[in-house]
């Protein structure tokens, strides 16, 4: 019998664990649907806020030796407009059996709650609450995901405003990510996406003699983030019994399996679309199946969290 890639994510059945991560491709219904057709088990939209935002000026997204660095600055058309995009996407995603994850953010707990209410109409399978973007600190101060109390406050507000599944997006930059996750769990989270980008980091161009990103600093993603992400997922899932979408530097079937072994229920893929586009989803599926066959793994459930032992 050939191994199965199907997973359960907070009661949702995904045909495979691969999830298009927020902010990659997901500004339009058409690109979300395209990622779904290409083999994503679920797709996440770009984070939206109540008010539209133009984001930071370019340069905002750059490839470097270890992956990507970005300070898009949460450009989005606003949650009301985003609802229309999500509704359009959802229509095409339902027949494909691919789940829709809607990402929101805000500047205060109430702001988050309002964004949640605005996108609720699109009935996404999961609402992802981005409390961990490192690229808007000059505007909003430190991300809520760095502090257990702040994370709990946002979770509580969204929980009160929204009836569906709420996933909190955690930061790899928290000094104690388990405490943050525990506070959010206590406040009503149904699961987590772990993790958002690392840092922030800075690139300097030595001929220009200045930071490259217009925002000076940006979040680090891709391969450089992977070991940090694995530790975060390992620690959070070992401590807390909620499902996690393990995200950060997944660019191979091997890395996806590592995420599951660390305890993830599903696996986010973002920076790996660089170069390869949505072909990454079928490649990762193939590579995962090859590994499972070789290692005698019939289902991902069998190995989920196996790295906790020992």
């Amino acid at each position, binding site marked *: 019998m050939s191994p199965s890639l199907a997973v359960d994510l907070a009661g949702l059945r995904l045909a495979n664990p691969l999830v298009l991560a927020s*902010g*990659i*491709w*997901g*500004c*339009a219904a*058409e*690109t979300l*649907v*395209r990622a779904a057709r290409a083999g994503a088990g679920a797709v996440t939209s*770009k984070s939206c806020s109540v008010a539209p935002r133009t984001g930071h*000026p*370019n*340069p*905002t*997204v*750059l*490839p*470097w*030796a*270890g992956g*990507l660095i*970005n300070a*898009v600055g949460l*450009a989005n058309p606003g949650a009301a407009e985003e609802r*229309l995009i999500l509704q359009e996407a959802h229509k095409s995603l339902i027949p494909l059996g691919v789940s829709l994850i809607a990402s929101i953010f805000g500047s205060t707990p109430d702001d988050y709650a309002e964004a949640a209410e605005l996108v609720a109409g699109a009935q996404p399978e999961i609402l992802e609450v981005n409390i961990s973007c490192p690229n808007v600190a000059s505007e909003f101060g430190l991300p809520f995901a760095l502090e257990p109390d702040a994370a709990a406050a946002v979770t509580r507000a969204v929980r009160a405003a929204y009836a569906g599944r709420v996933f909190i997006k955690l930061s790899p930059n928290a000094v104690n990510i388990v405490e943050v996750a525990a506070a959010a769990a206590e406040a009503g989270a149904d699961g987590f996406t772990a993790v958002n980008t690392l840092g922030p980091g800075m*690139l300097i*161009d030595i*001929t*220009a003699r*200045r930071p*490259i990103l*217009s925002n000076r600093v940006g979040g680090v993603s891709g391969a450089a983030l992977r070991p940090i992400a694995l530790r975060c997922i390992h620690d959070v899932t070992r401590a807390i019994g909620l499902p996690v979408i393990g995200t950060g530097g997944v660019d191979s079937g091997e890395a996806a399996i590592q995420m599951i072994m660390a305890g993830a229920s599903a696996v986010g893929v*973002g*920076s790996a*679309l*660089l*170069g390869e*586009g949505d072909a990454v989803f079928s490649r990762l599926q193939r590579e995962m199946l090859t590994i499972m066959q070789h290692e005698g793994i019939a289902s991902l459930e069998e190995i989920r969290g196996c790295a906790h032992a020992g």
Partner: protein
Amino acid sequence: MLDNIYQVMRVTERIPEGKCGATLVLDGELPCQAGQFVMVWLPGVEERPFTLVNDTPVTLTVAAIGPLTRALAGLEVGARVWLRGPYGHGFPPPGRRLLVLGGGSGIASLALLARRALAEGAEVRTYIGARTTDLLMLPWYPHWSTLTLTTDDGSQGIHGNVLQAAAEQFAWADGIYACGPEPMLAALARSRRSDWPPCWINLERVMRCGIGVCGSCHCGSHLVCADGPVFNLEQVTAELLAPPH
């Protein structure tokens, strides 16, 4: 591991383009397919996509319409420019009879195609349109083979638009190559007839990453930076004809 994100080049020559901007010849090389682009950064200003008008030496034609393009078009010989790329997919190898249609700065993306086709012995018939004479770009380019200019106000060349002027050439060509304002491309899509040769167009969108990650350049489900910027007209007809939302 070097990041090597940008290559820095210096302007060796600056050719004014009427009131529009300038063509900049730089002191570096970036081997590319015709139709590929680079992201050009001026520190402290902005970073935007620009077609490679030539790759050896790198040459850019800039229409001064905003902060970066005004700064670029005003650069003196010796000034520095930061580039990353080339990115995207260019034109497929052309046939023997190319019909080249350009509006505004879009014409820049067809220059290298024409130059190479001409060097291979192909015939190139080029139509460039603009609102007025002052806004014509690259009319001096030596590789257009035969060139017809059009202006909306009739101040130079044929009075009218490029599609009207070139109407009779559609049967002659074995490939149509177009770039320009989206209404022009939409008009092309609307008038497309089944007996035309293949039509290739070059799309422009606001870009952030230029490398297929951020999604900001999407046109329907296509990413202009990674799937294009060159598309077969059929691929994007639906998007060109759809009402903007």
